[in-house]
């Protein structure tokens, strides 16, 4: 199977307040045999960031987009538009792209059902789900979406993935300590390595 059919673009906030939800998405994607892709892959690059993001989106058949962070930034009192922008690029590629791009599927999350109608009403008609800021809900919905596309066989159940995720979260501070990693120093490369190996070793 081509990597396009197994790559999942993750479009979400990357701040500390979202880290448990981000980990939940990563756990669900990895456990289902798919590969997570996101803008953090290009953190160290000197290339134009938006071009790199477009390239990643082009390489992914699936997208998980979280548009729930509509709050104003505490310092600047402005909202962050990166998630709606990247969602727009993804949907644009699906609409205007090649036949391969038209196969794209997006799962869009907000905190509450129908709240998006107050700030992003033009996306009505897309598959928009509520996660209530709950990692378990997020895992269940991501797993079920990936299962419905039938790209991978014998996916573990959502409950099994949730159990593994909770065990990982419980052990994460000890794991970081063993590896002499301070929480603020953990990069995307570190975090994905920790999760990949956790799933391989502990399951």
């Amino acid at each position, binding site marked *: 199977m081509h990597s396009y059919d197994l790559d999942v673009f993750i479009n979400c906030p990357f701040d500390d307040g979202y880290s448990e939800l981000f980990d939940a998405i990563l756990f669900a994607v990895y456990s289902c*045999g798919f590969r997570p892709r996101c803008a953090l892959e290009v953190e160290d690059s000197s290339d134009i960031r938006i071009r790199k993001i477009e390239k990643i989106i082009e390489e992914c058949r699936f997208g998980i987009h979280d548009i729930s962070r509509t709050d104003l930034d505490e310092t600047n009192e402005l909202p962050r538009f990166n998630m709606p922008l990247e969602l727009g690029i993804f949907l644009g590629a699906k609409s205007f792209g090649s036949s391969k791009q038209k196969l794209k599927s997006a799962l869009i999350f907000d905190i509450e059902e129908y709240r998006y109608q107050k700030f992003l009403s033009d996306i009505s008609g897309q598959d928009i789900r509520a996660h209530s800021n709950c990692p378990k809900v997020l895992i269940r919905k991501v797993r079920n979406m990936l299962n419905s596309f039938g790209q991978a066989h014998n996916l573990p159940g959502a409950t099994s993935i949730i159990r593994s995720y909770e065990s990982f979260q419980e052990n994460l501070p000890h794991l970081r300590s063993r590896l002499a990693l301070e929480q603020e120093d953990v990069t995307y*490369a570190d975090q994905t390595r920790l999760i990949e*190996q956790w799933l391989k*070793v502990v*399951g």
Partner: protein
Amino acid sequence: MKKIVHIAKDKSGKWVVRADRAKSHGSKFPTKKDALASARTMSRNGGTLVVHDAKGKIQQVITLRTADTPRLKRAKVSHRMSADSVNAAIVEVVGSKQGVG
């Protein structure tokens, strides 16, 4: 959760294969090679083998998967920590909670 099986040398010089939570029990073998072969058979339905050196230090962590388990796709990033060091840390953290490792 996967079954974690340890292969380690005991005080008598034999190599012991034991599952987690069963420190005092386990099959004994004259050589490490025999112990590892037995551990692989025990874990043919998937699991993790933790191979210790003669002094008890973790030497290698071998992850086994069944044919019907989705194969994990690595993230597309560079500058990564070594998988061996992360595996050893995971086994130590999980083992310390179970009283083994």
